[in-house]
């Protein structure tokens, strides 16, 4: 083969590679583009054939009409309260228990840790009915407490924190003990700062999971004033199900999705690192 044909072959392989990436990328993006575009259309533009890609005259009033149907501000606030509270709880409980399991020796430690691993194998749907009943007995149905408290601790978080903390050298802790640091002080001044990577990975995973959580709020929430974003969207879907209000559904979906994508694009590096990390640890 001549140098020129090798060169040509390389160029065509590279062209093919980009063609595949672009085609796949368009498939990934098209639903989002159509969502935003049709949220600004008149119903007859959505129903039109041949297909209309973009509205002739973007109707931002669809968003005003949406605000009469559902209170997005309230939904965002509810989602934020619930997600921040559970994420903080998961960070605190996982780091405390991770420290206990990785840096202390006590009778029964390994048995207890195996039990934590065993609960990691229990998917949420298996315990849905009893957890709902317990929350009902506690009087927390249809309340923030009911939304938040059952999710404050995850076995996965404890596992992840413990694995990471095993790698922090004992000498550091011993040195701090010699200097008279309390165990709580060691936790707060040494373990937490040195566990930055694992805790930020955990924070991102917990945040995304809780923000998008649907099944549990669906069961535990009864009133619109406590609806999180997914619950509000679900009632919007039922409320606006006829073709002449599809634009409202799309406006609702846009309001739910765009801020999350903005946050993701800003913090992309941390998202990717966090997920890669859990993949390798698991």
């Amino acid at each position, binding site marked *: 083969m001549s140098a020129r044909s090798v060169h040509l072959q390389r160029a065509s392989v590279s062209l093919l590679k980009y063609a595949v990436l672009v085609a796949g990328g368009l498939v990934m993006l098209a*639903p989002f583009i159509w969502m935003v575009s049709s949220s600004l259309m008149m119903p007859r533009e959505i129903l039109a054939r041949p297909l209309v890609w973009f509205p002739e005259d973007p109707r931002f009033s669809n968003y005003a009409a949406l605000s009469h149907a559902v209170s997005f501000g309230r939904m965002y606030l509810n989602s934020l309260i619930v997600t921040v509270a559970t994420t903080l709880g998961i960070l605190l409980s996982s780091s405390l228990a991770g420290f206990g399991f990785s840096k202390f020796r006590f009778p029964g430690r390994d048995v207890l840790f195996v039990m934590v691993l065993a609960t990691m194998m229990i998917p949420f*749907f298996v315990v849905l009915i009893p957890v709902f009943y317990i929350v009902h007995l506690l009087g927390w149905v249809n309340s923030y407490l009911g939304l938040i408290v059952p999710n404050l601790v995850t076995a996965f978080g404890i596992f992840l924190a413990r694995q990471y903390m095993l790698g922090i050298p004992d000498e550091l802790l011993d040195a701090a003990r010699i200097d008279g640091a309390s165990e709580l002080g060691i936790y707060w001044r040494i373990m937490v700062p040195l566990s930055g990577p694992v805790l930020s990975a955990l924070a991102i995973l917990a945040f995304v999971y809780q923000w998008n959580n649907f099944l549990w709020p669906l069961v535990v929430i009864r009133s619109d004033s406590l609806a999180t974003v997914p619950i509000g969207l679900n009632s919007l879907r039922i409320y606006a199900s006829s073709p002449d209000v599809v634009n409202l559904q799309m406006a609702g979906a846009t309001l739910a999705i765009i801020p999350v994508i903005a946050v993701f694009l800003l913090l992309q590096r941390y998202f990717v690192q966090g997920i890669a990390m859990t993949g390798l640890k698991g």
Partner: protein
Amino acid sequence: MSYSVARGKLAEGVLERIPVRRRHALAGYMFIAPALVFLFVFALLPFLFTIYVSLHDWNMLTPIPTMPFVGLSNYTYLITQDPLFWQTFVNTVEFALGDVVISTSLGLAVALLLNTRVRLRGLWRAVYFMPYVTSSIAISIVWANIYNPSYGLLDGVFQLLNLPSQPFLSSPGQALISVIIVSVWHGLGYYMVIFLAGLQNIPAELYEAAKVDGAGAWHRFRFVTVPGLRPTLLFVVVVSTLSSLQVFDLTYVLTNGGPVNATNTLVLYMYNTAFNFLKMGRATAMAVLLFIVIFGMTLVQLRLLRERE
């Protein structure tokens, strides 16, 4: 261990009278206690309670002590007398099989592409990963409209390409595959990121050594990439199977199990049995059965993929 070193420096106090080793153990218990209490109340106890309820007849309204014990009849009813249970079971397995195979292979394909010398890698990664961070409910609403046979985006595109209109979600024959496609679109970026991390974990020296030995691109892939990626593949297959057997959000919003139960899946059926029909005994029995399937599948996969190492 250096408790003895630490002991010498400790200030005198009440605590000082407790032996250091025991105090150390006590601190350990204190750190794990809050988490263990929560796991007990919201995971372990409910798990045992699920098994207990599955042997009873309960509507959640009558007090626990008065619920009648029915032995295994909830299980035998589901297995021998409830065709819908079997249909949802088959749907769930079909969904999981399609979802796992397609998302895993597409995720791997994109990761392999992005692992070559490619411009704007960060941008591509963001584009493919983006759906994963968005709410499954929001994207299901969007996709339900995309699939709409009269005004949907897909129908419009089909018309531009002179293809016949398709019923998608409204036909029993196409509904399940249509839901699988949404699931793949939503989740593939997650697997891509994990595969990319796995690929980058394979030492570059191995590739260079193979090159020096005269291995071509295919041989480098077969004898360096594939074995190096095995632990990642194991993780991805186990995790994706676990999550797709539990599918709920997509089938709830896209089709609510229809048409004629063509996309009714086990967790959705369990949810309806429990919270619409208040048959807690039957619903918990379903939960236990699906749990056994998930647990068994995970064990089999771990064994199969480990053996080949």
